[in-house]
């Protein structure tokens, strides 16, 4: 039976198990929207196409499923670019379907014609320009295969209007993809696995570097077995938070630019680093020449092009992390590294006395307090979706994520405006989860129109805006490295409580620590989406910090005692 290309699109999505898509209609995608009404698919109408990608991204990160985006040609398609880049840098599987002008008009600068396959080439794993109805099913089926296989990522399928309107027979079996299987790399050689095992068994000061790949591969249990059996502490990347539990006895916490000093010190003094599904990003290594100078390095990753990119390693094991760990675990001996763990613990004590959460309430509200309290009040069980900046780092430091997929954040791209739409997507993927947005006043203003999407779709997310009146992280860099010249970082905000009211959601303002608990309780109790504006200390900075280009152990530590704390007598 012949069907239109538009119908074939939906048939394919149903076959792939898709029940929710995020999108925005327009001229070149109209045939597809017209056909949608005949299919059991929930369409979420966003307020800007960038948010549609972030929603699909949050949907994917929360559930592991492939997020789907639909947009029209021209500006509809170009608005996807930031979201695709965000997903690409964080290895998130997405399929974006865009309408395109009729094939006869391609290359003529027709109305709303943009070369979106050309534009998105570097920010997608692969993309397609489909001009015939019979090519739609093979393209979409392969797009899902490419998005989810190997190192995941976004794929875009651009479909001309005449391909949507044309007719073809929907032949799912014939559309079986094979090209994504072309480069199944060989499993690491036995000798390489043996070398890695020997290095692990001989190490005296080993540290595991736990990355996002643990989540993507589903290797949490194997990583914990390795850590427990061989008594190896693990440091976690930003995207690795939650992939392994933060409160595990072997957890050191987050590494890198805003990692705690003991974590980075442990990496610098280690004699063996075991890097699991992470890519030695500049935000976790500091100055490369000074990075872990005494450590041998084992790198396990599914992406062979990551080996020796930033950090030269002694053994590179390419493959699916779960399979590689299963191959080496039987040969890893039980060990005790008591003196090494005690040494790391001794640094921990020094850091704790500087920690703001251990300082008395001085009447000021600090973002760190809000994060700490939110963690306590939600018993660490919420899915927290953060934006980008200071609040993101405070959240990573003070909300201790134990559960898998419990932190959703834009790591590689650092995309402001990500949090609210991603949280809406996460909540739709996991309706039973308690989802919190943590965003700054700057990033929230980038995409807050999606509040209306949450209302229209009857989605409940709880929103904590950390308002310090600045683009805080940039301000912090200006304070530290540009002699406090605050160029373009002070930012005004609307009255967020009235804003919430205008959108018809619960809104509240908090400027004292004593009020945090009741506000959080009220937000949780509110029927729909709820917003709390936390007015926090304006010129607070995230510590500790490794300055860009500094060695990893060369950290700007928390002031001791905090000069802000000493001004505790000031009225707020």
């Amino acid at each position, binding site marked *: 039976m012949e069907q239109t290309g538009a119908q074939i699109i939906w048939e394919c999505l149903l076959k792939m198990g898709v029940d929710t898509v995020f999108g925005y209609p327009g001229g070149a995608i109209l045939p597809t929207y017209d056909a949608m009404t005949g299919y059991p698919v929930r369409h979420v109408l966003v307020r800007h196409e960038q948010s549609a990608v972030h929603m699909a991204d949050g949907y994917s990160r929360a559930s592991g499923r492939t997020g789907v985006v639909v947009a029209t040609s021209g500006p509809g398609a170009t608005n996807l670019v930031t979201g695709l880049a965000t997903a690409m840098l964080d290895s998130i599987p997405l399929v974006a379907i865009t309408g395109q002008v009729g094939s006869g008009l391609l290359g003529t600068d027709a109305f709303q014609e943009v070369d979106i396959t050309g534009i998105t*080439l570097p920010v997608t794993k692969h993309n397609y320009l489909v001009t015939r109805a019979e090519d739609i099913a093979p393209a979409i089926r392969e797009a899902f295969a490419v998005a989810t296989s*190997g*190192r995941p990522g976004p794929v875009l399928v651009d479909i001309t209007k005449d391909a949507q309107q044309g007719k073809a027979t929907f032949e799912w079996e014939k559309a079986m993809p094979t090209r994504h299987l*072309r*480069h199944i790399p060989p499993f690491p050689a036995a000798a390489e696995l043996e070398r890695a095992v020997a290095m692990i068994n001989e190490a005296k000061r080993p540290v595991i570097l736990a990355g996002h790949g643990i989540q993507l591969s589903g290797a949490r249990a194997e990583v914990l077995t390795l850590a427990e059996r061989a008594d190896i502490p693990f440091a976690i990347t930003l995207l690795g938070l939650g992939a392994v539990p933060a409160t595990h006895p072997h957890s050191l916490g987050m590494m890198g630019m805003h990692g705690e000093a003991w974590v980075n010190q442990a990496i610098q003094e280690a004699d063996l680093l075991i890097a699991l599904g992470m890519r030695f990003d500049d935000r976790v290594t500091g100055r490369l020449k000074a990075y872990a100078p005494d450590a041998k390095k084992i790198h396990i990753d599914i*992406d062979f092009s990551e080996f020796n990119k930033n950090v030269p390693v002694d053994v590179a094991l390419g493959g699916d992390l779960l399979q590689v760990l299963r191959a080496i675990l039987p040969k890893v001996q039980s060990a005790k590294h008591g003196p090494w763990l005690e040494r790391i613990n001794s640094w921990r004590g020094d850091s704790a006395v500087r920690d703001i959460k251990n300082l008395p309430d001085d009447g000021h509200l600090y973002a760190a307090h809000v994060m700490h309290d939110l963690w306590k009040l939600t018993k660490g069980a919420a899915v927290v979706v953060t934006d980008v900046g200071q609040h993101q780092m405070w959240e990573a430091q003070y909300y201790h994520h134990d559960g898998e997929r419990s932190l959703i954040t834009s790591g590689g791209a650092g995309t402001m405006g990500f949090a609210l739409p991603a949280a809406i997507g996460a909540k739709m993927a996991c309706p039973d989860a308690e989802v919190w947005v943590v965003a700054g006043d700057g990033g929230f203003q980038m995409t807050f129109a999606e509040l209306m999407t949450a209302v229209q779709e009857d989605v409940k997310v709880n929103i904590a805006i950390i308002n310090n009146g600045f683009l805080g992280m940039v301000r912090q860099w200006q304070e530290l490295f540009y002699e406090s010249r605050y160029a373009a970082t002070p930012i005004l905000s609307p009255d967020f409580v009235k804003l919430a009211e205008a959108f018809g959601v619960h809104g509240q303002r908090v400027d004292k620590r004593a009020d945090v608990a009741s506000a959080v309780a009220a937000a949780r109790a509110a029927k729909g989406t709820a917003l709390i504006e936390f007015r926090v200390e304006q010129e607070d900075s995230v510590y500790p910090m490794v300055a860009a280009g500094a060695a990893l152990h060369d950290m700007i530590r928390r002031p001791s005692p905090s000069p802000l704390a000493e001004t505790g007598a000031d009225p707020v």
Partner: protein
Amino acid sequence: MTHVLVVYTDDEPGVLTRVASLFRRRGFNIHSLTVGPTERPSVSRMTVVVDTDANTARRAVEHLRKLVNVLEVQQLGQHAKVVRDLALIRVSANATQRSEVLQLVQVFRSNVVDIAEDSLVIECTGSLGKIEALVDTLRPFGILEMGRTGAVAMTRGLRTDPSLVSSSEPVRAESSQSMSV
């Protein structure tokens, strides 16, 4: 140092852009890139010569393997190989210089493909080194114009990759159709 990569790809629109974009974005320096049809109708073959260190060349190979349209990548570094480049060189030569130039062309086993009143066009096929030597030899006469194809390369002996040797598809008799890119 130069590394020779042979890349088999689908013969479909946009593949050259994907490869070129990858090299540009990752900062891999292309010395030359040639592309053309192969014995199989749906497969194109690129020869990419990159000027970089061994680790970067290895990463270029791994990046190429991630492209959906790439069937296989061979790095010819460790194999005995034939690398050939074709050059057309228009050299200045009046009637009195002509015989001297013709002698040199013979030494290089090259051909004269056009003769005009005061110039010759010479066609030379060979290794990169041979062509450069010919160019140096002709330079004193005055090189008016030169075009080069870039290298095409192949391993010596049997093809080693079995997936590429045994093909059930019939070998195409004429391969004049150029790749659509």
